[in-house]
């Protein structure tokens, strides 16, 4: 093609590209057709047409046209690029590689094509093919990056294989040799190449060799910003037990950066080891101690009040001193000679801690540091109280107003220490309320310290109100008085401190527990949670939105969450490709791990499964809508998730403030338990979904095979796939799992509130929801199982079970005494509706099965077969039983509907609440609006949310009732 032709072509394609970029796919299609009318073999225009078709949802046409171009094996860049985009959007990355391979067959000397081929293998994790392509590239154009792409590809083979021998004896030595060759020939050019060499050495545990590289000429290519290079060397010495060198290295690091605590901790261990080896009367430990003490003296002098110095007070050395004290204490247990050293540090741990408070109490981090050290060294609450006492000897601040910001932080730290060591747990209720009131007053008074701050800043005063909230939460939130007091203070605090996410998290939790989802959502939205936070914080609402029966909102929220997971796959591979382009080899492994974590994310799998169930709940009104929803899901079983052990939990639980170490321990225990429960819940839900898909296909395939026995591929789904077998297996899985769950310990407690709330599994298995489903599935199996000669009866027990569930739930709703129990009732009711939805679908499937038997019985009757007559008798009796069952379900659903319409939850929201206990001096709570109006507002919000839940429950139940009535045979 001449240059002129190229520009003409480019000009003709331009409008198509523009339309595609603007999302105007229809116009793009027209433009493409226009070009193709002039030039019918214009490959790139064809592919762009494919892209427009694909984006218009016309996948079939897209695929066939694309296959046509694919066969022609195009070689021009723009066509291939467009094809790549198509295949990416079709989720068929393997075909990208294929089209570049075809192109290279035609133009084996084309560097650009080869490099695209390499990248297409990166998308596929085809390390071996990557390696081969990179070598071909290097042979074609001997550039360093190509050579190292191939080394990196070998490295990736080595770390991804489970064959340790292959990796250690073959792949890594090969990679090393390849780099060595370049070193010998003096061809090393870039930092990336050295980094990769170090990675190869490290994986073979050749640490001495690594040090040699770092110390040699190649090491100069590696930057030492923030001492990263020196740090790396120091840790290598340590790992190699080259103690003296390690000692010197860490000592130097500290001299250069006195604030990095990890350096001290390593140095203590190294000094101890060196001393133990030489038996030299603690020579090294002494040296370390002297260095530390000198450092601290110097800091003390240069930062003392009145002294003008540019030296900033930093807490590293002071923390290190405390760490050293406990380190030596531990050693002294076996070797009393250390006691003399300990005495030189401090006379007691309590002195050390109170000294630390004196120095750093005015930094908001002080409480966290102390709390962490208490935890690390197993400090009991009694010991912690002695620290508090020692601090209080210096000053007694409570009930006084801080006059400067430093004083405010010191005061807050002290209060948090008192709270964390349980001092306030001993107060009786009256005194506790007095304390809470005084904290509210302090919060109010100290807001003046934040007057100049922006609304986006956190108020220094916030900790007072947060502590008051924590004290209230320690009381019983199942008492509506306390619950509403807490909500009042928290909602008021948002008014003054709109940017404090800690209080928003408390509000979300509380509203979740009482099932007032609308209120949770408004705070959740104000935190602007997005992208990766869907994975780490999405759990805050992803369960509660369903359990509070806000089904339509659930569908939106879950869809938004899913979008993150579906888009990140592309982003991740794009970034892997960049890693090769820019030589960031150190990040390839990390990014690959990230991909796995997101792929096997618990949160992802949960919302993916729940979204299907929600679609069934919200969209299925009759047989046709059921078919519409379920048909596209049928392919999903091909890549079903069975690798439960790989699931990863990336929910961020630590985001909730927790001031007590023992509670923190309880929370992390609970998180582990909760993860197991959620995995069990996921299994349960996923077996149900998949069994339904399989059951649907059982009836579908038999319908189709009746229609046309030769047609074994329908809509791309093979109908000769043994759905019956799959369905049977899944029903068995579900049965086994349910049986297992009866003996599993499931966490049901909502406390501590900072921990993840109990999995939905807890409420679900407390009643026989699964049994209803299982009984119906068994019936479908019986009716459709051709191996069984005659099915004489349909087991209608499922109606009885469902009826008693609904009766129990209604009874618990009527007896609900507090908002927390209302929250639970909504969860139960949404389960009831969910089961109703699933039962309708299963009866629909059953109905299809019966219709088929009915038809075949009729056919055989025509043939005047005697056994056929018998068949038709048994079938019609089955149909009768089925209709009885249908009627019973209708009856139960009607009862539920009547209850829902009449249910008076408002009465629980009406009673009077005594707020005088938390009102303090009443300034804060009464400012601008009276307290009563704030609480009225909360009531109104909660009421509106409950009313919405009720409406959705009513709507779905009514819809399902209509569905049921359409299911007569």
């Amino acid at each position: 093609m001449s240059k002129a032709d190229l520009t003409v072509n480019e000009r003709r394609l331009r409008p198509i590209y523009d339309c595609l970029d603007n999302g105007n796919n229809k116009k793009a299609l027209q433009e493409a057709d226009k070009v193709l009318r002039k030039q019918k073999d214009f490959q790139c225009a064809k592919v762009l047409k494919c892209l427009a078709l694909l984006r218009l949802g016309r996948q079939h046409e897209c695929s066939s046209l694309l296959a046509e171009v694919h066969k022609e094996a195009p070689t021009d860049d723009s066509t291939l690029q467009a094809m790549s985009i198509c295949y990416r959007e079709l989720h068929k990355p393997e075909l990208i590689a294929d089209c570049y391979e075809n192109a290279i067959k035609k133009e084996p000397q084309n560097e650009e094509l080869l490099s695209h081929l390499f990248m297409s293998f990166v998308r596929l994790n085809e390390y071996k093919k990557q390696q081969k392509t990179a070598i071909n590239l290097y042979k074609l154009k001997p550039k360093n990056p190509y050579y190292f792409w191939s080394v990196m590809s070998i490295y990736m083979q080595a770390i991804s294989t489970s064959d340790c021998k292959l990796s250690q004896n073959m792949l890594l030595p090969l990679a090393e040799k390849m780099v060595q060759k370049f070193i010998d020939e003096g061809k090393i050019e870039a930092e990336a190449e050295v980094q990769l060499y170090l990675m190869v050495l490290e994986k073979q545990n050749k640490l001495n060799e690594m040090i040699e590289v770092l110390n040699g000429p190649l090491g100069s290519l590696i930057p030492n910003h923030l001492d990263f290079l020196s740090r790396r060397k120091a840790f290598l010495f340590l790992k190699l037990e080259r103690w003296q060198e390690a000692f010197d290295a860490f000592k130097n690091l500290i001299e250069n950066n006195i604030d990095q605590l990890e350096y001290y901790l390593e140095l203590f261990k190294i000094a101890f080891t060196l001393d133990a080896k030489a038996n030299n009367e603690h020579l090294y430990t002494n040296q370390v101690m002297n260095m530390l003490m000198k450092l601290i003296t110097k800091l003390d002098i240069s930062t003392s009040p009145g002294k003008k110095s540019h030296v900033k007070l930093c807490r590293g050395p002071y923390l290190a001193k405390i760490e050293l004290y406990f380190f030596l204490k531990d050693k002294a247990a076996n070797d009393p000679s250390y006691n003399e050293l300990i005495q030189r540090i401090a006379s007691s741990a309590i002195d050390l801690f109170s000294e630390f408070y004196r120095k750093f109490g005015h930094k908001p981090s002080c409480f966290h540091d102390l709390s962490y050290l208490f935890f690390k060294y197993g400090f009991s609450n009694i010991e912690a109280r002695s620290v508090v006492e020692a601090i209080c000897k210096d000053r007694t601040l409570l009930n006084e107003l801080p006059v400067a910001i430093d004083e405010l932080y010191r005061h807050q730290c002290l209060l948090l220490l008192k709270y964390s060591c349980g001092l306030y747990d001993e107060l009786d209720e009256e005194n506790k309320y007095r304390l809470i009131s005084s904290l509210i007053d302090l919060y109010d008074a100290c807001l003046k310290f934040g007057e100049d701050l922006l609304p986006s800043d956190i108020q220094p005063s916030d900790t007072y109100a947060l502590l008051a909230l924590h004290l209230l939460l320690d009381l019983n939130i199942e008492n509506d008085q306390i619950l509403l007091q807490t909500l009042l203070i928290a909602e008021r605090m948002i008014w003054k401190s709109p940017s404090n996410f800690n209080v928003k998290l408390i509000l979300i939790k509380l509203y979740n527990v009482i099932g007032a989802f609308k209120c949770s959502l408004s705070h959740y939205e104000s935190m602007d949670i997005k992208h990766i936070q869907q994975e780490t914080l999405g759990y805050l609402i992803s369960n509660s939105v369903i359990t509070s029966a806000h089904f339509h909102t659930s569908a939106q929220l879950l869809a938004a969450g899913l979008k993150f997971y579906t888009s990140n796959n592309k982003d991740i591979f794009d970034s892997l490709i960049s890693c090769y382009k820019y030589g960031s080899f150190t990040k390839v492994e990390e990014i690959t791990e990230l991909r796995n974590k997101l792929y096997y994310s618990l949160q992802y799998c949960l919302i993916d499964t729940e979204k299907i169930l929600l679609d069934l709940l919200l969209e299925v009104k009759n047989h046709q809508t059921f078919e519409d929803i379920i048909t596209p899901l049928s392919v999903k079983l091909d890549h079903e998730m069975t690798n439960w052990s790989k699931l990863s939990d990336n929910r961020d639980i630590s985001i909730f403030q927790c001031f007590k170490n023992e509670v923190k321990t309880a929370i992390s225990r609970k998180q582990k338990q909760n993860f197991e429960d959620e995995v069990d819940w996921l299994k349960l839900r996923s077996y149900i979904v998949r069994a339904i898909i399989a059951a649907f296909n059982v009836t579908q395939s038999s319908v189709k095979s009746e229609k046309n026995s030769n047609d074994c591929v329908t809509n791309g789904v093979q109908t000769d796939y043994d759905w019956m077998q799959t369905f049977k297996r899944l029903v068995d899985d579900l049965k086994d799992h349910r049986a297992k769950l009866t003996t599993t310990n499931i966490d049901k407690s909502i406390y501590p509130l900072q921990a993840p709330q109990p999995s939905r599994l807890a409420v679900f298995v407390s009643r026989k929801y699964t049994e209803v489903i299982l009984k119906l599935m068994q019936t479908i199996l019986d009716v459709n199982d051709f191996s069984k000669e005659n099915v004489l009866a349909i087991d209608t027990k499922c109606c009885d079970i469902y009826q008693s569930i609904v009766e129990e739930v209604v009874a618990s709703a009527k007896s609900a005494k507090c908002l927390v129990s209302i929250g639970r009732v909504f969860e139960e009711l949404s389960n009831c509706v969910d089961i109703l939805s699933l039962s309708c679908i299963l009866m629909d499937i059953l109905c299809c099965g019966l219709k088929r038997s009915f038809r075949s019985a009729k056919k055989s009757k025509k043939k005047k077969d005697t056994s056929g007559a018998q068949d038709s008798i048994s079938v019609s009796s089955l149909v009768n039983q089925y209709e009885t069952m249908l009627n019973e379900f209708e009856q139960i659903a009607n009862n539920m509907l009547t209850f829902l319409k009449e249910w008076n939850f408002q009465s629980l929201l009406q009673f009077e609440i005594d707020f005088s206990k938390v009102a303090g001096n009443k300034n804060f709570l009464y400012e601008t609006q009276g307290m009563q109006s704030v609480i009225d507002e909360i009531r109104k919000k909660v009421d509106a949310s409950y009313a919405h839940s009720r409406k959705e429950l009513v709507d779905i139940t009514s819809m399902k009732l209509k569905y049921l009535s359409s299911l007569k045979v």
Partner: protein
Amino acid sequence: MSNIRAFSCSDLFKLNSVNLDPLTETYGLSFYLQYMSHWPEFFQVVESPNGSIIGYIMGKVEGQLDQWHGHVTALSVQYDYRRLNLAAKLMKGLESISEKKQAYFVDLFVRVSNKVAVDMYKRLGYSVYRRVLEYYSGDPDEDAFDMRKALPKDKYKKSIIPLPHPVRPEDLD
């Protein structure tokens, strides 16, 4: 004390306590991945003694000829760990890697209303190079200061001579 180390991919799961601050943006995954795969040495985190992430810096190096410079894309420290000089340490690290990469200066954008941050950067040796009109979208849009600090390579500190007039975001190079 706090430990500074290179940013690793799994840290993305641990940024919440820093990022829930309203002025700290949570970017799309691809944005972080782009920085990690292109400029990994410009991305560091600070850890508290208990291992939680309390701050980070994310940056890059870019530009042509004497405009080749380090850029701070994001810098944030969790509220409870402010007033400890951590931001200054992170900035120092970014300046030193920029210097190693032969950059002439380091620059950053900051909301004009964010006085605390502007003052801190001034203390660290940065000065306002120009004002960028309506750089931050919002209600209403807000102007940014483009602040700069010259590195040794820019011997005569030409890069930081302030522009007399504000610029529009579309005119940024």
